[in-house]
């Protein structure tokens, strides 16, 4: 991974995932405040994303590294018409690694070809957000004590949700059984279902929650957005069907955990926050350790 860019979750292998997870665990149990000392990370947020940016900034500064960059395109030379090519070429001179978020799909892949230093994709439009997937894997491993043979339930917008697609690709390395719960209009795309079939993995599709809660080891919730529906009546009819409420957890496994990439709107009722299954806030903290591990690997420091 040393010197390599992380643009898409498929850029890394299963062995890479496991190495990163081991290192994240090490950083969580034994903080290493000097590992990134003398390193400069360029943080280029052409599109604002406060949560992701703060998570990266926390990851770098807690290990003694420095961050330079901008938090939205309007505070950069992009507004003066500078191309992505020029911005990346110039910033490559100033730092050891670039973390970038950009609204255009494919922008991170392009930047990785232009830059003389590694790029970490912190989200390129609706395309990829691989560090989110690594923190999801870390959260699953931490709570289930394993990654193999788990029952993973993906809920909500499975058609456009990039986090569920990347998680599916990554978890397919670990013999998962998948349950997809979504409105008809937002079903898991065929290409991902074929991908699982080719690997001999089991999946089931559902339009409502019913009994699957009791089988699940992980319930991964996503937001169902109104603008995804061609028919607003269809949205009104289904919008509450994918909300999780406390009484729905009564038959859940004690070790089952609920994950969510956040922000949530109302798909997880706040009364769930105090249950042992709620994990989404700790999941966000795990992002700091996962990102530290990814950066350390790419910079060749571990």
């Amino acid at each position: 991974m040393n010197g390599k860019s992380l643009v898409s979750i498929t850029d890394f292998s299963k062995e890479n995932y496991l190495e990163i997870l081991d290192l994240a665990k090490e950083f969580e149990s034994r903080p290493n405040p000097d590992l990134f000392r003398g390193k400069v990370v360029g943080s280029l947020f052409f599109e604002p994303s406060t949560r992701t940016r703060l998570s990266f900034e926390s990851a770098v500064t807690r290990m003694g590294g420095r961050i330079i960059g901008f938090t939205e395109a309007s505070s950069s030379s992009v507004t003066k018409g500078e191309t992505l090519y020029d911005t990346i070429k110039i910033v490559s001179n100033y730092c050891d690694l670039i973390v970038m978020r950009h609204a255009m799909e494919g922008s991170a892949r392009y930047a990785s070809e232009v830059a003389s230093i590694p790029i970490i994709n912190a989200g390129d439009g609706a395309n990829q957000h691989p560090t989110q997937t690594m923190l999801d894997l870390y959260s699953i491993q931490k709570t289930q004590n394993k990654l193999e043979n788990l029952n993973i339930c993906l809920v909500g917008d499975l058609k456009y949700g990039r986090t569920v697609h990347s998680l599916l690709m990554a978890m397919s390395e670990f013999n998962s059984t998948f349950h997809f719960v979504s409105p008809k209009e937002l079903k898991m795309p065929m290409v991902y279902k074929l991908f699982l079939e080719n690997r001999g993995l089991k999946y089931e599709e559902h339009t409502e929650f019913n009994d699957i809660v009791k089988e699940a080891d992980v319930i991964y919730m996503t937001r169902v957005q109104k603008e995804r529906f061609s028919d607003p009546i269809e949205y009104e009819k289904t919008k509450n069907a994918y909300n999780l409420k406390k009484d729905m957890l009564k038959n859940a496994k004690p070790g089952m955990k609920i994950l969510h990439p956040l922000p949530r709107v109302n798909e997880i009722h706040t009364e769930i926050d105090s249950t042992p299954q709620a994990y989404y806030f700790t999941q966000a903290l795990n992002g700091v350790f996962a990102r530290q591990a990814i950066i350390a690997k790419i910079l060749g420091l571990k």
Partner: protein
Amino acid sequence: MHDKVLNVSAIKNGTVIDHIPATSLFEVISILGLHNVESQITFGTNLESKKLGKKAIIKLSEVYLMDDEINKISLVAPQAKLNIIKNFEVVEKKIVEVPENVVGIVKCFNPSCITNHERIVTRFKVLSMNELRLKCHYCEKITDHEHMEII
């Protein structure tokens, strides 16, 4: 009739590209960059064809194409056949083959793709040819035949 058409503009040396769908003639010209060729070129289009309905034909005098150039036209003329002519005789026949990657020919149909916002040479992996599916190297979205646009 068919022979007569060929005879009218037979070339001594060069390449004949036959069995081009008539609707794809100008795309083939554009993909092969024939507007930059200085030697004699003859086009025929809307010719009768049992296989294609209406077909087009291009005769390039003193021009020989590399295989990777030939394969570029597979996107718009997959059934095209090439005859290499030496001294009025066909000395070699070639068919087009689907390349693994399509570089710099097709526009990505995804409006949010970075290739549609900066000067970037597009690049696609050919996933399937029977039902044309091109996966963008950048945005990872799939452009199919219906949405394909030649640059």
